[in-house]
């Protein structure tokens, strides 16, 4: 089957990452982060998801080239 799952995984987590990072920027210093012990967790975890998503996209692209 010529279907590479890494592509949709990459798309999904890149989008999640983008949404959270943008939202994190907009809410910098907001008191909603009292819950998460003062960490802007949207920004931080959003960045993690973005990296994971981009890595999956990279693997999918490399797989296609091979």
């Amino acid at each position, binding site marked *: *089957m010529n279907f590479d799952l890494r592509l*949709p995984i990459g798309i*999904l987590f890149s989008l999640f990452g983008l949404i959270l990072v943008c939202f*994190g920027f907009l809410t910098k210093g907001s008191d909603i982060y009292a819950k998460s012990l003062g960490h802007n967790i949207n920004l931080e975890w959003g960045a993690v998801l973005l990296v994971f998503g981009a890595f999956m996209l990279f693997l999918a692209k490399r797989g296609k080239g091979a």
Partner: protein
Amino acid sequence: MIDIQSISLLAAAGLPASSGESTTLINLHSVDYAILAVYILVVVGIGFVLKKYVKSASDFLTSGRSIPVWVTGLAFLSANLGAQEVIGMAASGAKYGIMTAHFYWVGAIPAMIFLAIFMMPFYYGSRARSVPEYLKLRFDEKTRGLNAISFAVMTVASSGASLHALAALLHLLLKWDYNFSLIVSSAVVLAYVLKGGLSSAIYTEVLQFFLIVLGFAPLVIIGLNDLGGWNGLMQSLTKVSGPEFTHSWKYMGTTANPMGVEWFGMVFGLGFVLSFGYWCTDFLVVQRAMAAKSMGDARRTPIIGAIPKMLFPVIVILPGMIALGLAAKAGSGYSIPLGVSGATDYNLVIPSLIAHYLPTGMLGLALTALMASFMSGMAGNVTAFNTVWTYDIYQSYIGKGKSDSHYMWMAKFATVAGILISIGFAYVAKNVDNIMDFLQLVFGFVNAPVFATFLLGMFWKRATGHGAFYGLLAGTICAMIFHGISSPVPLDKIGDGIPWVQGAWLGAKFGFTSSMAQNFWLAIVAWTLCFVITIAISLATRRTKTDTELVGLVYSLTDKIKEDDEPLWKRPAVVGGVVLLVALILNIVFR
């Protein structure tokens, strides 16, 4: 088995819609909805993309054996990752502490490795398209029928139970309308399963696996930070809950531990009978391995699944322990929520931690992960159901020798019907008290002896169809009687009696220290009886299958698989051995 066991816990968490309508636990904002919407679009999108690969009934029901091994491996794990795993195991983490890890390091892992090394060759190598069909090839029609019908009923019922739990949970947390949640979540599952069939379910299960890990990991990270790391958590658990919450083995010598069961009952009952019965014979999980590209990949599937499975307690059990520690922490303002009955409802551990720690944004991600776990479980059930229905029930008893396009139509019809029946079960679960406890009980009776049948079938060529069928029946009846005469509390503490769903409905003859101990011993007794009776009847009856017919189905009559030319890291026996060793080390470290 583990599957079914926790479903009723969940159904208990699913509070009736009429109960205490007061505050909403969680408020969602547009960013949270955006995340949920992206998720739904992507999973449904996968279904639509995969549609073009579905050309025959076997593409739809068995994926045409074409899926890469890392995908089947993660799906093998993820099909079982329904709500019972995420919510039920966190609840157990809060109830039993580290001992909950026995479900993984004693229960699941050895069984998964055994399946990979010893049993997969017969499932994949035979011409069987399902687990019941293996029984038909190995034994006879009636053994297959018994297994197929009980499996079909069980899968739609548990799918319905988890659907109910999801809708009730969303109602409780977000005040979403019960009917709305029910319809929307089943519509999403229906959309992608109907388009892409088993492939769709498998691929989305893997996506859901990553979502569950990445959605819940932040909860564990923040929680541990808050409580002063692992050591801080252990200290506070020792102080508030007692030292037995921080050891998995140290207090297993007697029943004086949170699970109320001693080591022998746990190792033999949970580790051997129940876990092997579930992981090695339940078509829901075995189906994932059967969709792999080759025999080697089919055998590597459970092993690849076992690696993350070993580490999963971090994501699913640790939150329960964190909740205990957090509730005891001065000034945290947190407590594990109460259920309708007014008692602590451990099933609300995960949702309440999400509400406590995560701000809007991350909240959407975690809730999406929670919904993904329900959908993944449901899609797994539905795809197992439509295959067993189409091949083992419809094609065998109702519509023999029809065209492929007819079976394809039937498979799609079964998919829709399976989801509709699940919805029906969800409403039954909502309206009839104890119905899920009752079903769980019946499934337990059917499941307890089943591994004996498969073990004898695969490793003893003299086992006959009559032996298998009546052995299974005897094991089930024995389980029923055992339940009827045993009590989950010691006899001198029964007092006014216990509800019949918990046992002793034939009069209590002996009592255990917990319902878990009762359950494990019930499994041990039913398994042993099934084992003995199957042997006795087999010896007394004539063989119906010749040696030639059993080639590829029985160990002694099948050529051993040669793997000498495979690199070491690809050999199931080698990798499986390493995984077992790591599991052993984990047991020792957290003893």
